[in-house]
Protein backbone atom coordinates (compact mmCIF):
# COMPACT_ATOMS: atom_id res chain seq x y z
CA UNK A 1 0.00 0.00 0.00
CA UNK A 2 1.45 3.33 -1.10
CA UNK A 3 -0.82 6.20 -0.12
CA UNK A 4 -1.15 9.86 0.79
CA UNK A 5 -4.31 10.29 2.79
CA UNK A 6 -6.00 12.21 5.58
CA UNK A 7 -7.21 9.14 7.45
CA UNK A 8 -5.16 7.09 9.87
CA UNK A 9 -4.32 3.50 9.04
CA UNK A 10 -4.56 0.19 10.92
CA UNK A 11 -0.90 -0.64 11.46
CA UNK A 12 -1.70 -4.09 12.86
CA UNK A 13 -3.58 -5.00 9.70
CA UNK A 14 -0.71 -3.78 7.53
CA UNK A 15 1.77 -5.89 9.51
CA UNK A 16 -0.42 -8.96 9.15
CA UNK A 17 -0.70 -8.41 5.39
CA UNK A 18 3.07 -7.85 5.07
CA UNK A 19 3.93 -11.37 6.27
CA UNK A 20 4.63 -12.86 2.87
CA UNK A 21 6.22 -16.26 2.30
CA UNK A 22 9.89 -16.05 3.25
CA UNK A 23 9.49 -13.18 5.70
CA UNK A 24 11.86 -13.32 8.65
CA UNK A 25 11.69 -9.70 9.80
CA UNK A 26 9.31 -6.77 9.63
CA UNK A 27 10.39 -3.25 10.56
CA UNK A 28 7.74 -0.63 11.30
CA UNK A 29 8.57 3.07 11.23
CA UNK A 30 5.87 5.27 12.73
CA UNK A 31 6.53 9.00 12.56
CA UNK A 32 4.41 10.85 15.10
CA UNK A 33 3.42 14.47 15.77
CA UNK A 34 5.72 15.49 18.63
CA UNK A 35 4.74 17.96 21.32
CA UNK A 36 7.10 20.82 20.48
CA UNK A 37 4.83 23.41 22.11
CA UNK A 38 2.44 23.16 19.21
CA UNK A 39 -1.31 22.75 19.10
CA UNK A 40 -1.56 20.91 15.76
CA UNK A 41 0.41 20.12 12.67
CA UNK A 42 -0.82 20.73 9.15
CA UNK A 43 0.62 18.74 6.27
CA UNK A 44 0.42 19.54 2.59
CA UNK A 45 1.55 17.55 -0.45
CA UNK A 46 1.97 17.98 -4.18
CA UNK A 47 -0.04 14.81 -4.34
CA UNK A 48 0.27 13.74 -7.97
CA UNK A 49 4.05 13.99 -7.85
CA UNK A 50 4.50 12.82 -4.27
CA UNK A 51 2.65 9.55 -4.83
CA UNK A 52 4.76 8.79 -7.91
CA UNK A 53 7.91 9.49 -5.93
CA UNK A 54 6.79 7.30 -3.03
CA UNK A 55 6.11 4.48 -5.50
CA UNK A 56 9.58 4.88 -7.00
CA UNK A 57 11.22 4.90 -3.56
CA UNK A 58 9.37 1.69 -2.68
CA UNK A 59 10.46 0.03 -5.97
CA UNK A 60 14.07 1.12 -5.46
CA UNK A 61 14.09 -0.13 -1.86
CA UNK A 62 12.70 -3.51 -2.92
CA UNK A 63 15.47 -3.89 -5.50
CA UNK A 64 18.31 -2.52 -3.39
CA UNK A 65 17.55 -4.52 -0.24
CA UNK A 66 15.61 -7.48 -1.57
CA UNK A 67 12.52 -6.50 0.39
CA UNK A 68 9.52 -8.77 0.17
CA UNK A 69 6.93 -6.11 0.96
CA UNK A 70 6.75 -2.32 1.37
CA UNK A 71 3.94 -0.10 2.67
CA UNK A 72 4.23 3.67 2.84
CA UNK A 73 1.32 5.74 4.13
CA UNK A 74 1.90 9.49 4.51
CA UNK A 75 -0.88 11.50 6.06
CA UNK A 76 -1.85 15.06 5.15
CA UNK A 77 -4.26 17.57 6.62
CA UNK A 78 -4.46 18.63 10.26
CA UNK A 79 -3.02 16.24 12.83
CA UNK A 80 -2.86 16.56 16.60
CA UNK A 81 -0.04 15.65 18.98
CA UNK A 82 0.51 11.92 19.14
CA UNK A 83 -1.11 11.15 15.79
CA UNK A 84 0.65 9.13 13.13
CA UNK A 85 2.21 11.12 10.30
CA UNK A 86 4.07 8.49 8.34
CA UNK A 87 3.94 4.72 8.51
CA UNK A 88 6.55 2.62 6.72
CA UNK A 89 6.35 -1.15 6.91
CA UNK A 90 8.98 -3.32 5.28
CA UNK A 91 9.24 -7.09 5.23
CA UNK A 92 12.44 -8.96 4.42
CA UNK A 93 14.02 -12.33 4.91
CA UNK A 94 16.41 -11.01 7.57
CA UNK A 95 16.63 -8.10 9.99
CA UNK A 96 19.54 -6.30 8.32
CA UNK A 97 17.72 -5.89 5.01
CA UNK A 98 14.56 -4.85 6.84
CA UNK A 99 16.31 -2.18 8.95
CA UNK A 100 18.41 -0.92 6.03
CA UNK A 101 15.42 -0.80 3.71
CA UNK A 102 13.30 1.09 6.23
CA UNK A 103 16.09 3.61 6.81
CA UNK A 104 16.59 4.10 3.08
CA UNK A 105 12.89 4.83 2.60
CA UNK A 106 12.55 7.40 5.38
CA UNK A 107 15.69 9.25 4.32
CA UNK A 108 14.57 9.32 0.68
CA UNK A 109 11.17 10.70 1.70
CA UNK A 110 12.70 13.42 3.86
CA UNK A 111 15.12 14.55 1.18
CA UNK A 112 12.96 14.54 -1.91
CA UNK A 113 9.21 13.97 -1.75
CA UNK A 114 7.15 17.18 -2.09
CA UNK A 115 5.40 17.24 1.27
CA UNK A 116 5.51 20.09 3.80
CA UNK A 117 4.64 20.49 7.47
CA UNK A 118 3.37 23.54 9.28
CA UNK A 119 3.44 23.60 13.05
CA UNK A 120 0.44 25.45 14.44
CA UNK A 121 0.91 27.21 17.76
CA UNK A 122 -1.16 29.50 19.97
CA UNK A 123 0.74 32.41 18.42
CA UNK A 124 0.22 31.33 14.82
CA UNK A 125 2.09 28.93 12.61
CA UNK A 126 5.59 28.14 11.36
CA UNK A 127 6.66 26.03 8.40
CA UNK A 128 9.11 23.29 9.30
CA UNK A 129 12.38 24.06 7.48
CA UNK A 130 13.04 21.56 4.75
CA UNK A 131 16.25 19.95 3.61
CA UNK A 132 17.73 21.00 0.30
CA UNK A 133 20.76 19.85 -1.59
CA UNK A 134 22.02 22.83 -3.51
CA UNK A 135 22.89 25.34 -0.83
CA UNK A 136 23.27 26.03 2.85
CA UNK A 137 20.30 28.26 3.49
CA UNK A 138 17.19 26.69 4.86
CA UNK A 139 13.70 28.00 4.67
CA UNK A 140 10.19 26.75 4.86
Amino acid at each position, binding site marked *: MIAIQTNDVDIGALIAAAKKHGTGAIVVFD*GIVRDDNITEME*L*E*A*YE*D*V*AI*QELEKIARDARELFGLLHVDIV*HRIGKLTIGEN*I*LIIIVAAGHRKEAYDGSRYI*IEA*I*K*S*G*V*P*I*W*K*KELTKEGGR*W*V*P*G*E*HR*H*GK*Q*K*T*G
Partner: protein
Amino acid sequence: MTVKIRFFARFRELLGTDILTEVAAGTMVTSLIKSIAKKNPEGYAAIFDENGAFHEFVILMKNGKRIDIADAGKTAVVDGDEIAVFPPVAGG
Protein backbone atom coordinates in the same frame (compact mmCIF):
# COMPACT_ATOMS: atom_id res chain seq x y z
CA MET B 1 -2.04 29.43 -24.64
CA THR B 2 -2.85 28.49 -21.06
CA VAL B 3 -0.51 27.21 -18.37
CA LYS B 4 -1.09 26.39 -14.72
CA ILE B 5 1.10 27.59 -11.85
CA ARG B 6 1.03 25.73 -8.57
CA PHE B 7 2.66 27.16 -5.46
CA PHE B 8 3.03 25.08 -2.31
CA ALA B 9 3.54 25.62 1.43
CA ARG B 10 4.64 29.18 2.32
CA PHE B 11 4.63 30.21 -1.34
CA ARG B 12 0.99 29.07 -1.64
CA GLU B 13 -0.01 31.11 1.39
CA LEU B 14 1.51 34.22 -0.17
CA LEU B 15 0.56 33.76 -3.82
CA GLY B 16 -2.31 31.27 -4.06
CA THR B 17 -2.22 28.14 -6.18
CA ASP B 18 -3.70 26.44 -9.24
CA ILE B 19 -3.42 29.73 -11.12
CA LEU B 20 -4.41 29.43 -14.76
CA THR B 21 -2.84 32.12 -16.88
CA GLU B 22 -2.67 33.04 -20.55
CA VAL B 23 0.87 33.45 -21.85
CA ALA B 24 2.45 34.28 -25.18
CA ALA B 25 4.34 31.66 -27.15
CA GLY B 26 7.99 31.58 -26.14
CA THR B 27 7.39 32.67 -22.54
CA MET B 28 10.10 31.27 -20.27
CA VAL B 29 9.46 29.62 -16.91
CA THR B 30 11.29 32.35 -14.98
CA SER B 31 9.36 35.24 -16.54
CA LEU B 32 6.08 33.39 -16.05
CA ILE B 33 6.74 32.90 -12.33
CA LYS B 34 7.90 36.50 -11.94
CA SER B 35 4.76 37.85 -13.57
CA ILE B 36 2.59 35.98 -11.07
CA ALA B 37 4.82 36.57 -8.03
CA LYS B 38 4.92 40.34 -8.60
CA LYS B 39 1.29 40.53 -7.48
CA ASN B 40 2.49 40.17 -3.89
CA PRO B 41 5.81 41.77 -2.88
CA GLU B 42 6.22 39.37 0.05
CA GLY B 43 5.59 36.42 -2.23
CA TYR B 44 8.05 37.77 -4.78
CA ALA B 45 10.71 38.25 -2.11
CA ALA B 46 10.14 34.71 -0.86
CA ILE B 47 11.09 33.31 -4.28
CA PHE B 48 13.46 35.88 -5.82
CA ASP B 49 16.41 37.80 -4.39
CA GLU B 50 17.06 41.52 -4.79
CA ASN B 51 18.72 40.88 -8.17
CA GLY B 52 15.69 39.03 -9.49
CA ALA B 53 17.36 35.62 -9.34
CA PHE B 54 15.72 32.61 -7.72
CA HIS B 55 16.73 32.00 -4.13
CA GLU B 56 18.96 28.95 -4.26
CA PHE B 57 16.54 26.87 -2.19
CA VAL B 58 13.58 27.29 -4.56
CA ILE B 59 12.51 24.08 -6.31
CA LEU B 60 10.82 24.13 -9.72
CA MET B 61 8.94 21.43 -11.58
CA LYS B 62 7.55 21.37 -15.09
CA ASN B 63 4.86 18.73 -15.52
CA GLY B 64 6.08 16.87 -12.45
CA LYS B 65 9.77 16.84 -13.40
CA ARG B 66 12.35 18.97 -11.66
CA ILE B 67 14.05 21.68 -13.64
CA ASP B 68 17.18 23.45 -12.46
CA ILE B 69 16.64 27.08 -11.50
CA ALA B 70 19.62 27.89 -13.72
CA ASP B 71 17.73 26.50 -16.73
CA ALA B 72 14.37 28.12 -15.98
CA GLY B 73 15.27 31.31 -17.85
CA LYS B 74 15.80 29.38 -21.07
CA THR B 75 12.99 26.84 -20.69
CA ALA B 76 9.87 27.83 -22.60
CA VAL B 77 6.40 26.82 -21.49
CA VAL B 78 3.87 25.36 -23.90
CA ASP B 79 0.09 25.14 -23.80
CA GLY B 80 -1.15 22.91 -20.97
CA ASP B 81 2.08 22.93 -18.96
CA GLU B 82 1.93 22.75 -15.18
CA ILE B 83 4.67 24.67 -13.40
CA ALA B 84 5.17 24.00 -9.68
CA VAL B 85 7.17 26.27 -7.37
CA PHE B 86 7.96 25.26 -3.81
CA PRO B 87 10.39 25.55 -0.90
CA PRO B 88 12.51 22.62 0.33
CA VAL B 89 10.42 19.61 1.23
CA ALA B 90 9.84 18.60 4.84
CA GLY B 91 7.81 15.41 4.84
CA GLY B 92 8.32 12.35 6.97
